[in-house]
Protein backbone atom coordinates (compact mmCIF):
# COMPACT_ATOMS: atom_id res chain seq x y z
CA UNK A 1 0.00 0.00 0.00
CA UNK A 2 1.93 2.90 -1.35
CA UNK A 3 -0.15 6.06 -1.00
CA UNK A 4 1.16 8.91 -3.08
CA UNK A 5 0.07 11.63 -5.46
CA UNK A 6 -1.61 9.01 -7.60
CA UNK A 7 -4.48 9.38 -5.14
CA UNK A 8 -4.96 13.01 -6.08
CA UNK A 9 -4.79 12.15 -9.76
CA UNK A 10 -7.36 9.40 -9.30
CA UNK A 11 -9.65 11.74 -7.38
CA UNK A 12 -9.45 14.15 -10.28
CA UNK A 13 -10.17 11.39 -12.77
CA UNK A 14 -13.05 10.14 -10.67
CA UNK A 15 -14.45 13.65 -10.34
CA UNK A 16 -14.29 14.21 -14.08
CA UNK A 17 -16.01 10.89 -14.73
CA UNK A 18 -18.77 11.71 -12.25
CA UNK A 19 -19.25 15.14 -13.80
CA UNK A 20 -19.39 13.71 -17.30
CA UNK A 21 -21.82 11.01 -16.29
CA UNK A 22 -23.94 13.54 -14.36
CA UNK A 23 -24.10 16.04 -17.18
CA UNK A 24 -24.04 14.05 -20.38
CA UNK A 25 -24.97 10.43 -19.82
CA UNK A 26 -27.62 10.23 -17.16
CA UNK A 27 -30.13 12.91 -18.23
CA UNK A 28 -30.73 11.80 -21.86
CA UNK A 29 -31.00 8.16 -20.87
CA UNK A 30 -33.50 8.72 -18.07
CA UNK A 31 -35.40 11.13 -20.28
CA UNK A 32 -35.62 8.53 -23.03
CA UNK A 33 -36.76 5.91 -20.53
CA UNK A 34 -39.35 8.17 -18.96
CA UNK A 35 -40.63 9.36 -22.32
CA UNK A 36 -40.94 5.79 -23.48
CA UNK A 37 -42.74 4.84 -20.28
CA UNK A 38 -45.14 7.70 -20.87
CA UNK A 39 -45.59 6.64 -24.46
CA UNK A 40 -46.26 3.05 -23.47
CA UNK A 41 -48.67 4.18 -20.79
CA UNK A 42 -50.47 6.34 -23.33
CA UNK A 43 -50.52 3.46 -25.77
CA UNK A 44 -51.97 1.15 -23.16
CA UNK A 45 -54.55 3.73 -22.15
CA UNK A 46 -55.47 4.23 -25.79
CA UNK A 47 -55.76 0.49 -26.27
CA UNK A 48 -58.01 0.24 -23.24
CA UNK A 49 -60.10 3.15 -24.44
CA UNK A 50 -60.36 1.49 -27.82
CA UNK A 51 -61.44 -1.71 -26.13
CA UNK A 52 -64.21 0.01 -24.18
CA UNK A 53 -65.26 1.92 -27.25
CA UNK A 54 -65.36 -1.29 -29.19
CA UNK A 55 -67.49 -2.88 -26.51
CA UNK A 56 -69.92 0.01 -26.40
CA UNK A 57 -70.02 0.01 -30.19
CA UNK A 58 -70.81 -3.69 -30.06
CA UNK A 59 -73.65 -2.94 -27.67
CA UNK A 60 -74.92 -0.12 -29.82
CA UNK A 61 -74.70 -2.27 -32.89
CA UNK A 62 -76.66 -4.97 -31.10
CA UNK A 63 -79.32 -2.45 -30.15
CA UNK A 64 -79.50 -1.18 -33.72
CA UNK A 65 -79.64 -4.70 -35.10
CA UNK A 66 -82.41 -5.59 -32.66
CA UNK A 67 -84.36 -2.48 -33.58
CA UNK A 68 -83.90 -3.22 -37.25
CA UNK A 69 -84.99 -6.79 -36.70
CA UNK A 70 -88.10 -5.62 -34.85
CA UNK A 71 -88.86 -3.14 -37.56
CA UNK A 72 -88.33 -5.71 -40.26
CA UNK A 73 -90.68 -8.06 -38.43
CA UNK A 74 -93.23 -5.31 -38.11
CA UNK A 75 -92.91 -4.48 -41.79
CA UNK A 76 -93.29 -8.11 -42.76
CA UNK A 77 -96.33 -8.44 -40.53
CA UNK A 78 -97.79 -5.30 -41.98
CA UNK A 79 -97.09 -6.57 -45.46
CA UNK A 80 -98.80 -9.83 -44.63
CA UNK A 81 -101.82 -7.98 -43.30
CA UNK A 82 -101.83 -5.72 -46.30
CA UNK A 83 -101.52 -8.73 -48.58
CA UNK A 84 -104.55 -10.33 -47.01
CA UNK A 85 -106.38 -7.04 -47.22
CA UNK A 86 -105.46 -6.56 -50.83
CA UNK A 87 -106.45 -10.10 -51.69
CA UNK A 88 -109.76 -9.65 -49.87
CA UNK A 89 -110.34 -6.34 -51.50
CA UNK A 90 -109.43 -7.73 -54.88
CA UNK A 91 -111.68 -10.67 -54.29
CA UNK A 92 -114.59 -8.50 -53.30
CA UNK A 93 -113.92 -6.11 -56.13
CA UNK A 94 -113.65 -8.98 -58.54
CA UNK A 95 -116.82 -10.50 -57.18
CA UNK A 96 -118.60 -7.18 -57.45
CA UNK A 97 -117.25 -6.64 -60.89
CA UNK A 98 -118.17 -10.16 -61.90
CA UNK A 99 -121.61 -9.62 -60.49
CA UNK A 100 -121.89 -6.36 -62.32
CA UNK A 101 -120.69 -7.93 -65.55
CA UNK A 102 -123.03 -10.83 -65.10
CA UNK A 103 -125.87 -8.42 -64.34
CA UNK A 104 -125.15 -6.23 -67.27
CA UNK A 105 -124.74 -9.17 -69.58
CA UNK A 106 -127.91 -10.64 -68.20
CA UNK A 107 -129.57 -7.34 -68.85
CA UNK A 108 -128.02 -7.24 -72.29
CA UNK A 109 -129.13 -10.76 -72.92
CA UNK A 110 -132.61 -9.90 -71.74
CA UNK A 111 -132.64 -6.84 -73.90
CA UNK A 112 -131.30 -8.80 -76.79
CA UNK A 113 -133.80 -11.46 -76.15
CA UNK A 114 -136.70 -9.07 -76.07
CA UNK A 115 -135.36 -7.28 -79.09
CA UNK A 116 -134.92 -10.55 -80.89
CA UNK A 117 -138.34 -11.53 -79.79
CA UNK A 118 -139.75 -8.29 -81.09
CA UNK A 119 -137.86 -8.65 -84.28
CA UNK A 120 -138.87 -12.24 -84.58
CA UNK A 121 -142.37 -11.28 -83.83
CA UNK A 122 -142.18 -8.64 -86.48
CA UNK A 123 -140.63 -11.07 -88.90
CA UNK A 124 -143.10 -13.76 -88.07
CA UNK A 125 -145.86 -11.26 -88.51
CA UNK A 126 -144.60 -10.14 -91.82
CA UNK A 127 -143.85 -13.72 -92.76
CA UNK A 128 -147.27 -14.69 -91.74
CA UNK A 129 -148.64 -11.79 -93.64
CA UNK A 130 -146.50 -12.69 -96.60
CA UNK A 131 -147.35 -16.37 -96.28
CA UNK A 132 -150.94 -15.50 -95.86
CA UNK A 133 -150.95 -13.24 -98.83
CA UNK A 134 -149.27 -15.95 -100.82
CA UNK A 135 -151.78 -18.36 -99.68
CA UNK A 136 -154.50 -15.92 -100.48
CA UNK A 137 -153.15 -15.37 -103.95
CA UNK A 138 -152.98 -19.05 -104.49
CA UNK A 139 -156.54 -19.33 -103.41
CA UNK A 140 -157.52 -17.71 -106.56
CA UNK A 141 -157.01 -21.02 -108.15
CA UNK A 142 -159.97 -22.80 -106.74
CA UNK A 143 -159.13 -26.09 -108.28
CA UNK A 144 -155.78 -26.34 -106.58
CA UNK A 145 -157.35 -25.64 -103.28
CA UNK A 146 -160.59 -27.14 -103.74
CA UNK A 147 -160.01 -29.92 -101.41
CA UNK A 148 -158.30 -27.54 -98.98
CA UNK A 149 -161.12 -25.12 -99.06
CA UNK A 150 -163.51 -27.89 -98.79
CA UNK A 151 -161.69 -29.20 -95.79
CA UNK A 152 -161.60 -25.74 -94.35
CA UNK A 153 -165.12 -25.26 -94.84
CA UNK A 154 -165.80 -28.56 -93.22
CA UNK A 155 -163.64 -27.67 -90.36
CA UNK A 156 -165.31 -24.33 -89.92
CA UNK A 157 -168.58 -26.13 -89.97
CA UNK A 158 -167.19 -28.52 -87.38
CA UNK A 159 -165.74 -25.78 -85.34
CA UNK A 160 -168.89 -23.84 -85.32
CA UNK A 161 -170.64 -26.96 -84.23
CA UNK A 162 -168.03 -27.64 -81.66
CA UNK A 163 -168.09 -24.10 -80.48
CA UNK A 164 -171.65 -24.41 -79.76
CA UNK A 165 -171.17 -27.57 -77.79
CA UNK A 166 -167.82 -27.01 -76.14
CA UNK A 167 -166.34 -24.18 -74.14
CA UNK A 168 -165.82 -21.12 -76.19
CA UNK A 169 -162.29 -20.52 -74.90
CA UNK A 170 -160.89 -23.50 -76.71
CA UNK A 171 -160.00 -23.40 -80.28
CA UNK A 172 -159.89 -26.68 -82.03
CA UNK A 173 -159.10 -25.08 -85.29
CA UNK A 174 -155.89 -23.48 -84.19
CA UNK A 175 -153.62 -24.47 -86.99
CA UNK A 176 -151.58 -22.36 -89.36
CA UNK A 177 -153.14 -24.10 -92.24
CA UNK A 178 -156.61 -22.98 -91.16
CA UNK A 179 -155.66 -19.73 -89.48
CA UNK A 180 -156.71 -17.57 -92.34
CA UNK A 181 -160.26 -18.53 -92.10
CA UNK A 182 -160.65 -18.57 -88.42
CA UNK A 183 -159.97 -16.29 -85.55
CA UNK A 184 -157.99 -17.59 -82.67
CA UNK A 185 -157.30 -15.56 -79.54
CA UNK A 186 -154.13 -17.60 -78.70
CA UNK A 187 -152.42 -17.18 -81.97
CA UNK A 188 -150.64 -13.85 -82.30
CA UNK A 189 -150.49 -14.22 -86.04
CA UNK A 190 -154.09 -13.70 -86.59
CA UNK A 191 -155.16 -12.23 -83.34
CA UNK A 192 -155.80 -8.93 -85.03
CA UNK A 193 -159.20 -9.92 -86.38
Amino acid at each position, binding site marked *: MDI*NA*TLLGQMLVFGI*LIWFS*WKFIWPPLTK*AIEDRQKKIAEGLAAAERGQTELQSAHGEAQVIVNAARDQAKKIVDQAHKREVEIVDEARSTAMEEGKRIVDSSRQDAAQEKSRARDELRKDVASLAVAGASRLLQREIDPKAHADLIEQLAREIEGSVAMRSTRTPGRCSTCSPRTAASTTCPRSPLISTS
Partner: protein
Amino acid sequence: MAAAEHAAGPANSTEYITHHLTHLKVGEGFWSFHVDTIFMSVLLGIVTLGLFYTASRRATVGVPSKWQAFVEMVVEFIDTTVKEVFHLDRSFLAPLALTIFVWVFLMNAMDLLPLDLPGKVAALFGINYWRVVPTADANTTFAMSLTVLLVVLFYSFKAKGAGGYIHELFTAPFGSNPVLWIPNFVLNLVELLSKPVSLAMRLFGNMYAGELVFMLIALLGAGVFTLTVGSAFGFFGQVAMGAVWAIFHILIITLQAFIFMMLTVVYSAMATEHH
Protein backbone atom coordinates in the same frame (compact mmCIF):
# COMPACT_ATOMS: atom_id res chain seq x y z
CA MET B 1 -2.00 -16.78 -16.50
CA ALA B 2 0.53 -19.25 -17.68
CA ALA B 3 3.65 -18.74 -15.70
CA ALA B 4 5.44 -20.92 -18.20
CA GLU B 5 5.36 -18.10 -20.68
CA HIS B 6 7.32 -16.16 -18.19
CA ALA B 7 10.09 -18.71 -18.00
CA ALA B 8 12.64 -16.37 -19.42
CA GLY B 9 11.72 -13.61 -16.98
CA PRO B 10 12.05 -13.84 -13.22
CA ALA B 11 14.35 -16.37 -11.66
CA ASN B 12 12.09 -17.54 -8.86
CA SER B 13 8.57 -17.28 -7.43
CA THR B 14 9.33 -14.38 -5.11
CA GLU B 15 10.81 -12.37 -7.90
CA TYR B 16 7.84 -13.22 -10.14
CA ILE B 17 5.32 -12.04 -7.59
CA THR B 18 7.28 -8.98 -6.62
CA HIS B 19 7.61 -8.05 -10.25
CA HIS B 20 3.87 -8.38 -10.72
CA LEU B 21 3.15 -6.23 -7.70
CA THR B 22 5.38 -3.37 -8.71
CA HIS B 23 3.84 -0.26 -10.20
CA LEU B 24 5.29 1.74 -13.01
CA LYS B 25 6.19 4.72 -10.88
CA VAL B 26 7.28 8.21 -11.80
CA GLY B 27 8.58 10.69 -9.26
CA GLU B 28 9.93 10.54 -5.74
CA GLY B 29 8.31 10.29 -2.31
CA PHE B 30 4.72 11.47 -2.06
CA TRP B 31 4.86 13.35 -5.34
CA SER B 32 5.10 10.27 -7.43
CA PHE B 33 2.53 8.78 -9.77
CA HIS B 34 1.60 5.25 -10.66
CA VAL B 35 1.47 5.67 -14.40
CA ASP B 36 -0.05 2.23 -15.01
CA THR B 37 -2.90 2.84 -12.54
CA ILE B 38 -3.71 6.27 -13.89
CA PHE B 39 -3.43 5.15 -17.51
CA MET B 40 -5.61 2.10 -17.03
CA SER B 41 -8.28 3.89 -14.99
CA VAL B 42 -8.47 6.78 -17.44
CA LEU B 43 -8.59 4.38 -20.37
CA LEU B 44 -11.35 2.31 -18.75
CA GLY B 45 -13.19 5.45 -17.73
CA ILE B 46 -13.14 6.67 -21.30
CA VAL B 47 -14.21 3.24 -22.60
CA THR B 48 -17.14 2.85 -20.20
CA LEU B 49 -18.40 6.38 -20.29
CA GLY B 50 -17.75 6.52 -24.03
CA LEU B 51 -19.89 3.44 -24.59
CA PHE B 52 -22.60 4.82 -22.35
CA TYR B 53 -22.29 8.19 -24.01
CA THR B 54 -22.94 6.72 -27.46
CA ALA B 55 -26.06 5.06 -26.11
CA SER B 56 -27.08 8.29 -24.45
CA ARG B 57 -26.51 10.34 -27.59
CA ARG B 58 -28.51 7.96 -29.74
CA ALA B 59 -31.17 7.35 -27.10
CA THR B 60 -34.53 7.24 -28.77
CA VAL B 61 -37.98 7.11 -27.28
CA GLY B 62 -38.97 4.56 -29.89
CA VAL B 63 -37.67 1.03 -30.23
CA PRO B 64 -34.21 1.00 -28.62
CA SER B 65 -31.15 -0.62 -30.12
CA LYS B 66 -29.74 -3.60 -28.28
CA TRP B 67 -26.95 -1.54 -26.80
CA GLN B 68 -29.36 1.17 -25.73
CA ALA B 69 -31.60 -1.46 -24.19
CA PHE B 70 -28.67 -2.85 -22.22
CA VAL B 71 -27.57 0.58 -21.05
CA GLU B 72 -31.12 1.44 -20.10
CA MET B 73 -31.31 -1.79 -18.16
CA VAL B 74 -28.22 -0.83 -16.17
CA VAL B 75 -29.52 2.71 -15.70
CA GLU B 76 -32.91 1.45 -14.54
CA PHE B 77 -31.32 -1.02 -12.16
CA ILE B 78 -29.15 1.65 -10.57
CA ASP B 79 -31.93 4.21 -10.52
CA THR B 80 -34.24 1.76 -8.76
CA THR B 81 -31.55 0.83 -6.26
CA VAL B 82 -30.85 4.48 -5.48
CA LYS B 83 -34.53 5.32 -5.29
CA GLU B 84 -35.14 2.64 -2.69
CA VAL B 85 -32.49 4.02 -0.37
CA PHE B 86 -32.16 7.71 -1.11
CA HIS B 87 -35.37 9.69 -0.97
CA LEU B 88 -34.24 13.15 -2.01
CA ASP B 89 -33.51 14.45 -5.49
CA ARG B 90 -31.22 11.84 -7.01
CA SER B 91 -30.27 13.63 -10.20
CA PHE B 92 -26.66 13.73 -8.95
CA LEU B 93 -26.41 10.65 -6.78
CA ALA B 94 -27.80 8.29 -9.41
CA PRO B 95 -25.23 9.17 -12.09
CA LEU B 96 -22.56 9.04 -9.40
CA ALA B 97 -23.69 5.53 -8.54
CA LEU B 98 -23.71 4.61 -12.21
CA THR B 99 -20.17 5.91 -12.63
CA ILE B 100 -18.95 3.99 -9.61
CA PHE B 101 -20.63 0.77 -10.66
CA VAL B 102 -19.54 0.59 -14.28
CA TRP B 103 -16.10 2.05 -13.75
CA VAL B 104 -15.22 -0.10 -10.75
CA PHE B 105 -16.66 -3.15 -12.49
CA LEU B 106 -14.50 -2.65 -15.54
CA MET B 107 -11.38 -1.87 -13.50
CA ASN B 108 -11.99 -5.01 -11.45
CA ALA B 109 -12.58 -6.97 -14.62
CA MET B 110 -8.96 -6.32 -15.63
CA ASP B 111 -8.15 -8.99 -13.07
CA LEU B 112 -9.57 -11.54 -15.49
CA LEU B 113 -7.05 -10.74 -18.19
CA PRO B 114 -4.30 -13.31 -18.54
CA LEU B 115 -1.88 -12.44 -15.77
CA ASP B 116 1.21 -12.04 -17.90
CA LEU B 117 -0.40 -10.58 -20.99
CA PRO B 118 -0.38 -6.89 -20.03
CA GLY B 119 3.21 -7.15 -18.84
CA LYS B 120 4.25 -8.73 -22.13
CA VAL B 121 2.43 -6.06 -24.12
CA ALA B 122 4.06 -3.36 -22.01
CA ALA B 123 7.42 -5.02 -22.55
CA LEU B 124 6.93 -4.53 -26.29
CA PHE B 125 6.99 -0.79 -25.59
CA GLY B 126 10.02 -1.16 -23.37
CA ILE B 127 8.10 -0.87 -20.14
CA ASN B 128 9.15 -3.22 -17.38
CA TYR B 129 6.34 -2.86 -14.90
CA TRP B 130 2.66 -2.72 -15.65
CA ARG B 131 -0.05 -3.50 -13.13
CA VAL B 132 -3.31 -3.73 -14.95
CA VAL B 133 -5.91 -3.62 -12.15
CA PRO B 134 -6.35 -0.02 -10.95
CA THR B 135 -8.58 -1.06 -8.06
CA ALA B 136 -5.78 -3.25 -6.72
CA ASP B 137 -3.97 0.02 -6.11
CA ALA B 138 -5.00 1.63 -2.81
CA ASN B 139 -4.56 5.04 -4.39
CA THR B 140 -7.52 4.45 -6.65
CA THR B 141 -9.80 3.04 -3.97
CA PHE B 142 -8.92 5.76 -1.48
CA ALA B 143 -9.31 8.41 -4.13
CA MET B 144 -12.80 7.15 -4.77
CA SER B 145 -13.76 6.73 -1.14
CA LEU B 146 -12.49 10.22 -0.26
CA THR B 147 -14.49 11.65 -3.12
CA VAL B 148 -17.48 9.77 -1.76
CA LEU B 149 -16.72 11.29 1.66
CA LEU B 150 -16.88 14.73 0.09
CA VAL B 151 -20.22 13.83 -1.44
CA VAL B 152 -21.46 12.57 1.93
CA LEU B 153 -20.35 15.79 3.60
CA PHE B 154 -22.00 17.77 0.83
CA TYR B 155 -25.29 15.97 1.44
CA SER B 156 -24.92 16.44 5.22
CA PHE B 157 -24.54 20.16 4.80
CA LYS B 158 -27.23 20.34 2.19
CA ALA B 159 -29.77 18.47 4.29
CA LYS B 160 -29.05 20.05 7.66
CA GLY B 161 -27.30 23.30 6.89
CA ALA B 162 -23.81 24.12 8.18
CA GLY B 163 -25.05 25.01 11.68
CA GLY B 164 -27.34 22.06 11.90
CA TYR B 165 -24.66 19.63 10.82
CA ILE B 166 -22.02 21.00 13.16
CA HIS B 167 -24.58 21.03 15.95
CA GLU B 168 -25.35 17.42 15.23
CA LEU B 169 -21.64 16.51 15.21
CA PHE B 170 -21.39 17.65 18.81
CA THR B 171 -24.75 16.63 20.21
CA ALA B 172 -25.50 13.28 18.60
CA PRO B 173 -25.72 10.50 19.54
CA PHE B 174 -25.32 10.94 23.32
CA GLY B 175 -27.09 14.26 23.92
CA SER B 176 -26.56 18.01 24.04
CA ASN B 177 -24.93 18.21 27.52
CA PRO B 178 -21.66 20.22 27.09
CA VAL B 179 -19.79 17.48 28.86
CA LEU B 180 -20.74 15.12 26.08
CA TRP B 181 -19.68 17.40 23.24
CA ILE B 182 -16.19 15.98 22.97
CA PRO B 183 -17.23 12.31 23.13
CA ASN B 184 -19.96 13.00 20.60
CA PHE B 185 -17.58 14.72 18.25
CA VAL B 186 -14.92 12.05 18.55
CA LEU B 187 -17.43 9.33 17.90
CA ASN B 188 -18.87 11.15 14.91
CA LEU B 189 -15.40 11.75 13.53
CA VAL B 190 -14.54 8.10 13.84
CA GLU B 191 -17.80 7.17 12.22
CA LEU B 192 -17.26 9.64 9.41
CA LEU B 193 -13.68 8.59 8.72
CA SER B 194 -14.37 4.89 9.02
CA LYS B 195 -16.61 5.16 6.00
CA PRO B 196 -13.99 5.98 3.38
CA VAL B 197 -11.45 3.69 5.02
CA SER B 198 -13.80 0.72 5.01
CA LEU B 199 -14.94 1.48 1.48
CA ALA B 200 -11.42 1.78 0.13
CA MET B 201 -9.90 -1.09 2.08
CA ARG B 202 -12.69 -3.48 1.17
CA LEU B 203 -12.31 -2.96 -2.55
CA PHE B 204 -8.54 -2.76 -2.45
CA GLY B 205 -8.24 -5.86 -0.30
CA ASN B 206 -10.50 -7.92 -2.49
CA MET B 207 -8.77 -6.96 -5.69
CA TYR B 208 -5.26 -7.19 -4.34
CA ALA B 209 -5.91 -10.58 -2.82
CA GLY B 210 -7.60 -11.77 -5.99
CA GLU B 211 -4.63 -10.71 -8.04
CA LEU B 212 -2.27 -12.42 -5.62
CA VAL B 213 -4.24 -15.65 -5.78
CA PHE B 214 -4.04 -15.54 -9.57
CA MET B 215 -0.27 -15.17 -9.27
CA LEU B 216 0.01 -18.11 -6.90
CA ILE B 217 -2.13 -20.24 -9.19
CA ALA B 218 0.02 -19.19 -12.11
CA LEU B 219 3.10 -20.33 -10.24
CA LEU B 220 1.69 -23.85 -9.90
CA GLY B 221 2.47 -24.66 -13.48
CA ALA B 222 5.77 -22.87 -13.54
CA GLY B 223 7.82 -26.02 -13.77
CA VAL B 224 5.87 -27.64 -16.61
CA PHE B 225 8.89 -27.72 -18.89
CA THR B 226 10.86 -29.86 -16.46
CA LEU B 227 8.54 -32.66 -17.64
CA THR B 228 8.30 -34.35 -14.24
CA VAL B 229 5.17 -35.96 -12.78
CA GLY B 230 4.99 -33.22 -10.16
CA SER B 231 5.16 -30.48 -12.73
CA ALA B 232 2.37 -32.16 -14.69
CA PHE B 233 0.19 -32.15 -11.58
CA GLY B 234 1.13 -28.56 -11.05
CA PHE B 235 0.12 -27.67 -14.57
CA PHE B 236 -3.26 -29.33 -14.26
CA GLY B 237 -3.67 -27.70 -10.88
CA GLN B 238 -3.00 -24.34 -12.45
CA VAL B 239 -5.55 -24.89 -15.19
CA ALA B 240 -8.24 -26.25 -12.89
CA MET B 241 -7.79 -23.78 -10.06
CA GLY B 242 -7.24 -20.90 -12.41
CA ALA B 243 -10.57 -21.67 -14.07
CA VAL B 244 -12.37 -22.03 -10.73
CA TRP B 245 -10.88 -18.86 -9.30
CA ALA B 246 -11.58 -16.87 -12.46
CA ILE B 247 -15.20 -17.95 -12.49
CA PHE B 248 -15.51 -17.13 -8.80
CA HIS B 249 -13.80 -13.84 -9.46
CA ILE B 250 -16.50 -12.85 -11.94
CA LEU B 251 -18.83 -12.84 -8.96
CA ILE B 252 -16.37 -10.97 -6.76
CA ILE B 253 -15.66 -8.15 -9.20
CA THR B 254 -19.39 -7.57 -9.79
CA LEU B 255 -20.19 -7.83 -6.12
CA GLN B 256 -17.41 -5.44 -5.08
CA ALA B 257 -18.50 -2.89 -7.67
CA PHE B 258 -22.07 -3.17 -6.46
CA ILE B 259 -21.08 -2.96 -2.77
CA PHE B 260 -19.02 0.18 -3.39
CA MET B 261 -21.93 1.78 -5.21
CA MET B 262 -24.50 0.65 -2.68
CA LEU B 263 -22.52 1.85 0.32
CA THR B 264 -22.00 5.21 -1.34
CA VAL B 265 -25.74 5.56 -1.73
CA VAL B 266 -26.39 4.34 1.79
CA TYR B 267 -23.86 6.75 3.30
CA SER B 268 -25.39 9.60 1.31
CA ALA B 269 -28.84 8.61 2.49
CA MET B 270 -27.64 8.45 6.10
CA ALA B 271 -26.09 11.88 5.72
CA THR B 272 -29.46 13.35 4.84
CA GLU B 273 -31.19 11.81 7.85
CA HIS B 274 -31.64 13.83 11.02
CA HIS B 275 -30.63 12.33 14.29
